[in-house]
């Protein structure tokens, strides 16, 4: 079977699996990294949102063969380390707002939020209500209002 090598949460990893297996299953089923969640498998619910080289992506829609050895995948487990802290400011904001209910979607929500704030910052503008309306990550518990509050306060600390 083909070997694939790339970086996950700061470490180089190599997996032996068919080219077209999507990254989500490589992370979860082969590497045991279970922070990214399955919610649909077709890049709709966004529960698996993680970062690839700092940008938000959905591993359920990435064949592992698309990854280069230098590509850096960051899952929720590796987020805090990107700022060299125990918790990323967005995770702290999540705790302050007590956002999570069942918690299943929250790793994806937080990863999407961090990427959104980075993108807005890169464009040199303030976060808007329209930006928040545009977040597609679904939360079946309906924590949306607290997510909005957490992103606004987390953005200030990033």
């Amino acid at each position, binding site marked *: 079977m083909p070997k694939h090598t790339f970086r996950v949460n700061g470490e180089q990893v190599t997996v032996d699996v068919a080219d077209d297996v999507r990254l989500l299953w490589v992370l979860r089923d082969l590497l045991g990294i279970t922070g990214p969640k399955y919610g649909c498998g077709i890049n709709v619910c966004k529960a698996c949102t993680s970062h690839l080289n700092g940008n938000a992506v959905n591993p359920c829609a990435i064949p592992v063969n698309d990854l280069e050895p230098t590509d850096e995948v960051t899952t929720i487990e590796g987020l805090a380390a990107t700022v060299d802290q125990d918790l990323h400011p967005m*995770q702290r904001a999540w705790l302050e707002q007590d956002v999570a209910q069942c918690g299943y979607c929250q790793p994806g929500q937080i990863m999407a939020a961090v990427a959104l704030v980075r993108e807005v910052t890169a464009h040199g503008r303030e976060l808007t209500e329209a930006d928040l309306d*545009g977040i597609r990550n679904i939360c079946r518990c309906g924590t949306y209002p607290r997510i909005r509050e957490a992103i606004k306060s987390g953005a200030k600390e990033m």
Partner: protein
Amino acid sequence: MPGSDGAAIGRRRFLGFVIAAPTLVAAAELTRPESAAATPTPVAGQVPSPEITKIVDLTDMMTAATLPTAGLIRVEVHEDGTVSFALPRAEVGQGITTSTAMLIAEEMDVPLDRVRVTLADARPELVFNQITGASNTTHSTYTPIRTAAAIARLRLLEAAATVLGSAASELTVRAGVIADRAGNSVPFGDLAAKAATDRTEQVSVELKEAKDFSVIGTPRNRIDAVAAVTGRKKFTMDLDVPDAKSTMVCRAPTINGTVESAANLAEVRGMPGVTDVAVVSTGVAVRAETFGQCVDAVRALRVSWKPGTAEGKSDESVLDELRAAELPLGPRPPVANVDERFTFYFRSNSALEPNCAIADVRADRAEIWSGLKSPIVAKQEIAVKLGLPLTRVTVHVTDSGGSFGRRLFYDAALEAAEISQQFGKPVKLMWHRADDSRQGRTHPMCISRVRATYAGNTVLTYRQRHTSVATDLGHGFGEIVTALAARLPVGDIGFSETFFQLSQEMSYKFGASTRWLNETDKGFNTGSMRNVYSPDATCARELVVDQLAGKMNKDPYQFRREFLRDDRAKAVLDKVAEVGSWGRQMPANTAQGIAFHAEYKSVSAALVEIDCRPETVNREIRDGVAGPRVTKVVFAVDVGLAVNPRGLEAQMMGCICDGIALTLTSSLHLRDGHFLEASWDNYFYTRQWNTPPELQIIVMPNTSEQPGGAGELGVAPSMAAVACAYGRATGTMPTSFPINHDTLSFEPKPTIPPVPESPTDGIRRAR
């Protein structure tokens, strides 16, 4: 067990036990003795009361059902100073592990972060007392958990008295440390073994008075919040059970269809990563190294299918069935009246975590892991299915990624057990989202007919006939109802009717009021959905209330205020009207709506503002539904006693998002024996673009010493208030829900193969 009557001694003194163990274990029966005294004895020959919920509601009924059969729940103190408790309920996001830890922290004077609450395995000895439903958890466990915790504290004090050489009455407890007046102290951990007993004995203890509470009633964050935001919280599919490989089932194109023949099992068995393929009772099961390879295998299978249980049916044909089954209201009365019929389409109770379970079935034993709200029934059925004695089946209850009614059933656990037995290997079973939506349980389609008569300023009669596709209550609720139905003054009616009567309350002074349920068609996979009847029945009622107010030329808020029976009800209504500035001037095509709902010994009111202007309704949303925007919600809730106001607010927030979806956007479309929806971009649950930008939730001051129910409470008033606001903004009362059901806003996915391929373009925007 001695003294199992568990009678309350005095107002706050309760009986419990210390249990023989190496370190301190205090226990109590999972009963509420004072509730036993409060349960009314039906008078022989008493006619059914039109307000049966005033005598005994569903909360009382479930609590009463627990009395004769309850086992013990145990608070354990460990040598590291922590306290642990295995809660015989399911945590599905509603926050009961946190509120339970708060009860223990309160009674023991131990810091909240030193209390560890886990979920108990299925315990058949608890009989009816291990079901998580009907918003009953806090109501039924409030006193037993505190009793066990208080006994633990008492024993620790006695042990400390010996260690410190001081009378127990001279000692103080603070933050898990016991100190004497001289300043000498000893932590709980050092006392864990000393306070233990080698002989189980009964102990009586006094509980704290509410005025002394420092934890109960204060807003606290969830105890699992850090685990949730760091990805460390483990759900079923995150568990590492040796050799439990990814497993999925290829399912039929129509509801509950079964396999006739499968053409290429051997070919699929040879696909990359695949280890096992076999026909099972629900389809063709495949086991592989990764779920991705399961998806490929499911898609490659060539299966011919036998018909299902709803063959050829559609929304239109079910609507005809419902109309035919509706109990007659008789000819229109000769007095002024409002007569309306409301339609509520099928809705999905899918959680974000799909149906899933791990099963490791061996020749002589089985072990199951799943998020289960009825684990005892699950364990019993799995044992029967596998042909194993009950004692050889272990069922672990895992944290669930949401429930909304779905986890009352154990479809995945039963299926995983069957597959593991057939393969002779452990399996980690996951339903694909498309399966979860199309073959998973639904809230049944129903109609609600309401006729109210009035004269002058008086409502003479209010009659409601609710007609529904049958709701499956076979998860253990049914058993509780069976056990008690005969003793209730409701006459000879079925389980569903009893459940309906007990969960519906007429809060308004509407003269002679009756409500009846009729059911039809058991061909669908149904269940409750936060909750069973209330959102639809209440939405219909509140819309009729607005109609009646209009006929009498009264303001909708003032009309409700005038007709509501009790002060708690009026207080929440007044609160939302005041805080939400009821009656303020609003632009054309926007409006306020107000609604009220009582259930589970709790009351709630919602004030909603909605924007139905064309530029809002038609705003561009990719692969989603825009529609009217709820721009503001003010919600007031009185649950009697709020253990964790912050958790209660979270529950109401979720209920509000549900209510918005139920009125405006979310439904399943039934066509030709199957549901069209197969994705979260087909089934339009509330998303960020539907979320109210302004939201205020007001937890009212406590009105009781006992907590009522909360988990489902807020859906009904939210749904109703959105509907009322929509009616006022558009000038047309909605009668069909959700309002966008007639517009299909997506391209349906194929049913063969039953699951879509995962996309391959995810990397495009990342570099």
